[in-house]
């Protein structure tokens, strides 16, 4: 191009302004103004170069397009505006359209390249991120794999059909197996006869998705046939939708621990010397019989005690004794274990056989005879041939009618009866004899603590005047609310209390309580209050402190001594020189009266009766009770009672008849001059509150006043 540009016609300024404005406006502020200014300058220069170039070279205009794309003028709207600008304000006549075309081409190429480059880079980034994730996933999987492979605990994975899919080396070692040994095996193949009940139920529930894990101690057969005990934990693996997918079993070898446990369990339940069950294990078995018995279930016990074992032990030494016991145990076990009976050693030379299911007394007796027979031949201990005898207490009962403790006690007591009746024999349980023995046992064992625990209480039985039926006196009767036996009357425990000496504190307690009660009545009802009768046991009468005890109690309760009568039995005072006489005299001296209780039940010494400082006499209940007995001569009975009444009157004593149970007898006794009567007809022993009511009623009826 030869034409020189004419400055006057130069349109570049107005184009330049429009160009700069376009670049500034169409960017949204993402570029700094300075950057845009630089871009404006550079592009303006390039466009000028393209316009003025000779020959015409569109490349600078193309470069402008590319520069705009690089500066993110990528909105197609920008292209439209640029092209429009080039058309509207042509840079230089004929080159305008060409410049616009070149710019558009440069812009499009740059945009295409930018797009491709960015697509590639984002794909690369996504790829790299995915690979990173995969690497991490692989690393985490490798970590799990390492965990699985090197775990000390056996791990196995199975599907829900029970197929074993994969096991780790620890599990192979546990089973003593090679990988191929377990290939294709099923979980169900791994049953062991000693499997804990419930383990396969739990497995079924897990596979069915009803539970997520379970734990048991479970034995397995190793590949070599040995048994390995494991602590097994099985877990159900679910997918993201919570559907069951796999089962994972973890097995820990606990064989050593299990064997130790077994040994400890054996030691805990077996007698070291004989290998028989020990006492604790026997009681466990016995209690199991009572746990859920079939209706009508029966059981039997044979308590066995060797005769004369102590002599052997003492004369030949403990070693010989032990050998004998072991030999006896072996013989018992040899004949009885095959019959299904439990043989245990309770200690010392005591053994027991438990018949967990017994057809009847005959079977239990047969067992006793079998075992006696088994002990028949001599036992060789060292150089000695020892003959062993044994006594057997046999108990056979329905499970429902007794308790383990009662049964053991009964069998033990029956054994002692067998011993008493002569050795080398069995004795069958006798309920009546047992009841007596049990009472003595239960009473004597418990009584020392019963007083401290407040298990005793006092009832009062009325003694009424036969003349007018009024309440003359009450007899204090001690009761025992025994935790196992229920409420016991004095006849059931006083004899034992006398034997054990407990009667002294018990007697004092009764006196104290009764005196306090009587004093209360006296304060409330004055002359209408009844006399208080308290039994004095023979042993109490001979106690040094009796007099001072009574004096103290009277003083502390404030009871008028004249309202207290102590009842003594004939046996309490046996003679003129009896050591208790001074005490009795001293009691009378302080105003207390005495009565002879149960008169006629012993060998009454009428002569002594005269010398005793008594003021009352109570005819033993049996005399009145016998009047009912059709086998006994009633007339004779009445004559005896009449004789006793007149004897008492001769001695100046108030006579009380006991066990009066009918109006007829009361009337007859009254007519023969008997003073007072006691018995169910006049009132049973009752709580003190009822006596209180009765006193008050008496006052109302007879008009007594305080």
């Amino acid at each position: 191009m030869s034409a020189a540009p004419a400055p006057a016609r130069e349109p570049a300024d107005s184009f330049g302004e429009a160009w700069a404005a376009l670049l500034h406006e169409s960017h949204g502020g993402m570029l700094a103004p300075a950057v845009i200014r630089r871009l404006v300058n550079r592009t303006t220069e390039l466009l000028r170069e393209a316009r003025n170039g000779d020959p015409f070279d569109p490349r600078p205009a193309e470069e402008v397009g590319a520069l705009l794309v690089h500066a993110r003028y990528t909105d197609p709207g920008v292209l439209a505006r640029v092209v429009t600008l080039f058309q509207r304000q042509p840079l230089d006549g004929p080159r305008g359209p060409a410049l616009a075309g070149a710019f558009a081409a440069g812009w499009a190429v740059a945009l295409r390249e930018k797009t491709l480059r960015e697509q590639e880079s984002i794909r690369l980034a996504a790829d790299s991120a995915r690979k990173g994730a995969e690497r991490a996933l692989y690393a985490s999987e490798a970590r799990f794999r390492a965990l699985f492979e090197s775990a000390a605990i056996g791990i196995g994975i199975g599907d829900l059909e029970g197929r074993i899919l994969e096991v780790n080396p620890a599990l192979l070692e546990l089973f003593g197996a090679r990988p191929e040994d377990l290939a294709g095996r099923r979980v169900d193949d791994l049953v062991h006869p000693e499997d804990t009940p419930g383990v396969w139920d739990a497995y079924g529930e897990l596979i069915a998705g009803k539970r997520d894990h379970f734990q048991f101690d479970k034995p397995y057969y190793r590949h070599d046939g040995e048994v390995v005990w494991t602590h097994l934990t099985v877990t159900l693996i679910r997918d993201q939708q919570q559907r069951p997918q796999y089962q994972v079993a973890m097995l820990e070898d606990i064989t050593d621990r299990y064997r130790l446990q077994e040994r400890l369990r054996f030691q805990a339940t077996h007698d070291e010397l004989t290998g028989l069950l020990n006492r604790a294990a026997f009681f466990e078995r016995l209690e199991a019989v009572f746990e859920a018995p079939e209706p009508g279930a029966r059981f039997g016990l044979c308590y066995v005690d060797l005769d004369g074992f102590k002599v052997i032990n003492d004369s030949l030494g403990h070693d010989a004794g032990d050998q004998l016991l072991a030999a006896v145990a072996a013989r018992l076990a040899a004949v009885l274990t095959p019959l299904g009976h439990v043989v245990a050693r309770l200690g010392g030379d005591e053994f027991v056989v438990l018949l967990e299911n017994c057809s009847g007394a005959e079977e239990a007796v047969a067992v006793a005879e079998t075992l006696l027979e088994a002990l028949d031949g001599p036992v060789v201990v060292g150089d000695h041939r020892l003959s062993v005898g044994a006594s057997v207490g046999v108990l056979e009962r329905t499970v429902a009618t007794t308790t383990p403790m009662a049964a053991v006690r009964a069998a033990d007591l029956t054994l002692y009866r067998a011993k008493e009746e002569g050795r080398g024999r069995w004795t069958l349980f006798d309920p009546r004899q047992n009841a007596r023995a049990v009472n003595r046992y239960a009473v004597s064992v418990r009584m020392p603590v019963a007083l401290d625990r407040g298990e005793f209480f006092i009832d009062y039985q009325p003694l009424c005047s036969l003349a007018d039926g009024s309440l003359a006196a009450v007899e204090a009767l001690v009761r025992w609310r025994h935790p196992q036996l229920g409420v016991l009357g004095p006849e059931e425990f006083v004899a034992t209390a006398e034997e054990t000496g407990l009667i002294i504190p018990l007697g004092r307690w009764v006196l104290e309580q009764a005196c306090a009660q009587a004093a209360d009545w006296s304060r409330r009802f004055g002359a209408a209050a009844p006399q208080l009768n308290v039994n004095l046991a023979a042993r109490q009468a001979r106690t040094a402190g009796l007099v001072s005890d009574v004096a103290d109690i009277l003083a502390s309760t404030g009871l008028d001594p004249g309202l207290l009568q102590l009842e003594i039995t004939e046996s309490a005072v046996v003679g003129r020189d009896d050591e208790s006489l001074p005490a009795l005299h001293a009691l009378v001296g302080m105003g207390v009266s005495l009565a002879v209780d149960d008169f006629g039940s012993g060998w009454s010494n009428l002569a002594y009766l005269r010398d005793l400082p008594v003021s009352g006499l109570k005819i033993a209940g049996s005399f009145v009770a016998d009047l009912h007995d059709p086998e006994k001569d009633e007339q004779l009975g009445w004559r005896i009672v009449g004789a006793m009444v007149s004897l008492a009157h001769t001695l100046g004593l108030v006579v009380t008849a006991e066990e009066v149970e009918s109006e007829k007898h009361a009337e007859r006794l009254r007519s023969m001059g008997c003073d007072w009567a006691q018995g169910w007809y006049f009132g049973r022993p009752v709580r003190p509150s009822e006596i209180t009511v009765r006193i008050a009623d008496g006052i109302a009826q007879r008009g007594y006043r305080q």
Partner: protein
Amino acid sequence: MTRPQWVPPGTDTEKPNAARVYDYYLGGSHNFAVDRELARRAVELWPELPMIMRANRAFLRRAVHYAAEQGITRFLDIGSGIPTFGAVHEIARETAPGAEVVYVDQDPVAVAHSELLLADDPLSQVVQADLRQPADLLTRPPVAALLDAGEPVAVLLVAVLHFITDAEDPEGIVRQLRAAMPAGSILILSHACLEGRPDQTGPHQDLYARTPTPLTMRSRKRISGLFDGFDLVEPGVVYLPEWQPENPGAVGSHPERFTGMAGVGRLP
């Protein structure tokens, strides 16, 4: 359930991702069909969106420039996305050539891309961390190193807190970050707001609800509250174009149409 640290997060390119959608709005091609699909539907509903995104980017540029002019040479860009154009390190270095930048994003693709981009830049580092666990984020070595020097740091929370739900406690997150920032540090924050175009906020939030990063737009008051403990730099919390515009014409007559609030605070 929280995933243990050593289990890698997945890279799900089947789902639209906020960072790549943002790139699309800015005219970039660092995105996949799913991202463009979402962006197109958003733009159909709300044609100004690309303009808003550019305004947000423009704010970032002005704010980073401001921070660099204040002498700050350390930048922590949290939720950096795909920093292709006008990345913080480029802007900052125009003023402060030695500026260090740590980019943080939770999206593995964005992080991978940043790593590729910044492989040759020794002064820039990339960390994959989740803003919702600020304690973890702050203990990442590059982040900790940046903060431990005790020099002021510009922390950028640009267009990121609206991806934190109320249940995730955005205020608490900012509080934890603030506690780790040395005195004189700067908080650069922008956030989608409810006031500008109330007609648009509902459908727009619905659209993002389907992405891994649902959107919670907040009121101006809530957004201002995020600067608790900071002294606001003039002009305070304002619509995106209103923050220190370079020329009066840049604001336009309807700044509220940009529906984003921005502000810069200085930690005393």
